[in-house]
């Protein structure tokens, strides 16, 4: 879309306004109902806490972000690999997809103890986060891999393309838009996964992540700090999503309907 100067400013102003409006609403709710800070702190208090507790919170943020990124990489790799395997034949998909579903629906709290028995804490955390985040990647990638233009498939068959060539040159590019939707979902889930995994399976110690901060702050009734940690998680989530959306845009810009704008 070719935006005029005004429209371009608007495209920045609107989200900022929306955000400011949300903060204002939050502030008003707290103020008008006289909600005490130990139940719901006002945004200014949360911001102040964010600044004052930054040394502690930033360290935890960093730990959680590292887990998140590792989980996202593993979930993406695993989801895509599974999708590729499942796309090979209906039999494989019919036979093994149920296991993927089982993995998706297994509650982390239930399997974490088992994992802790057999895996190192780091591996256990990564496994938990993977379990939380891989399914959308798998589902979306598989949907993309199996909805290829049948004529293009015929073309590859006619040219005696190997399965590998068909995968690399046809199915994977065709699945890209759908995969990227899955990836954007997985970005947020990896963050949740990191947090849940940290609670259920994480080793503690100096380098504890935001989940630990939340539990700790909750225990100490330090609700403003708890909300500061939550705010960091929210910001991290939005930044991750934004990055993945940007990646999506860059990869699809020139050829896909969702991003190629029509003028008129």
């Amino acid at each position, binding site marked *: 879309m070719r935006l005029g100067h005004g429209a371009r400013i608007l495209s920045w102003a609107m989200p900022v306004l929306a955000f400011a409006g949300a903060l204002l609403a939050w502030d008003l709710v707290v103020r008008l109902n006289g909600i005490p800070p130990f139940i719901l702190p006002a945004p200014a208090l949360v911001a102040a806490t964010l600044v004052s507790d930054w040394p502690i919170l930033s360290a935890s943020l960093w730990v959680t972000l590292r887990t998140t990124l590792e989980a996202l990489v593993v979930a993406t790799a695993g989801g895509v690999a599974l999708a590729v395997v499942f796309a090979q034949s209906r039999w494989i998909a019919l036979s093994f997809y149920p296991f993927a579903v089982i993995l998706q629906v297994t509650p982390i709290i239930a399997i974490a103890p088992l994992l802790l028995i057999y895996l190192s804490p780091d591996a256990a955390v990564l496994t938990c986060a993977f379990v939380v985040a891989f399914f959308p990647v798998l589902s979306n990638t598989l949907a993309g891999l199996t909805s290829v233009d049948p*004529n293009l498939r*015929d*073309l590859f068959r*006619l*040219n*005696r393309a190997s399965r590998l060539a068909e995968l690399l*040159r046809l199915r994977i590019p065709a699945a890209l838009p759908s995969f990227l939707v899955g990836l954007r979902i997985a970005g947020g889930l990896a963050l949740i996964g990191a947090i849940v995994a940290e609670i259920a399976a994480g080793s503690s110690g100096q380098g504890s992540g935001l989940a630990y901060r939340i539990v700790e702050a909750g225990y100490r009734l330090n609700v403003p700090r708890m909300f500061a940690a939550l705010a960091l998680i929210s910001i991290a989530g939005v930044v991750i999503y934004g990055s993945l959306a940007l990646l999506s845009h860059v990869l699809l810009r*020139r*050829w896909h309907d969702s991003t190629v704008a029509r003028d008129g």
Partner: protein
Amino acid sequence: MSGLTSGASRSAATPLAAPAAISLIGVGKSYPSGTQALDGLDLVVRQGEFLALLGPSGCGKSTALRIMAGLAAPSSGTVERHIGAADGASIGFVFQEPTLMPWARVAANVRLPLDLAGVGRAEARRRAEEMIERVGLAGFGRAYPRELSGGMRMRVSLARALVTRPHLLLMDEPFAALDEITRFRLNDDLLALRAAFGCTIAFVTHSTYESVYLADRIVVMSGRPGRVTDEIVVEAPGPRTAAFRGTAGYAEQCRRAFAAVAGAAAASEPR
């Protein structure tokens, strides 16, 4: 293919005597929706022959072409294919729609069959470049399909089919979206290609003029269900050049072909 080395001027007799490249014998095809697209279709494409398929819209030409290529299995009847699987990617196919990879640039789309056949990078690039120029798209190698006009897309598809210099070329209305000038030039290019490499060509067209100009033999189909209703062996006295279009024989054969199509259309009507 050995019988075909004398360039564009050759008698029509040779290919008619040549052994079959593909035979469809009593082929029927019904789709899951219940449509009986073909029924008892007998059709032989001889080696080195240039065969045109004419027929009313929806009569089963595309279906027949797909069966010839092995892209669809017949519901009944037999298909015999005598094209050596040995000589690599030897089938060129032009779909009725451009069927390009939207994520790949024009050059990459055209290069695809070469890449799949394992042709070296530089060589593939050179050959693709040349073929893109051949279809009049020089300078568009780096464009994406959606940045092209309909006719340009179809030409990319054509370039892709020709770039491997295939032994068997199956084309589904390859020139329908092109202006007459481009069409004539590509017609001649096709004849030259065929003369140079002696490939076997079967193609669908809706232009009786084009079919007479290009083909050794015209098979006319009628629809519902699709079957062969007529066959015209085209007689061309000299080389097929623009001059051929001026001859009385050409006009007469066009009339005959048109009449045959009209007959087929009439036969298709009372479905």
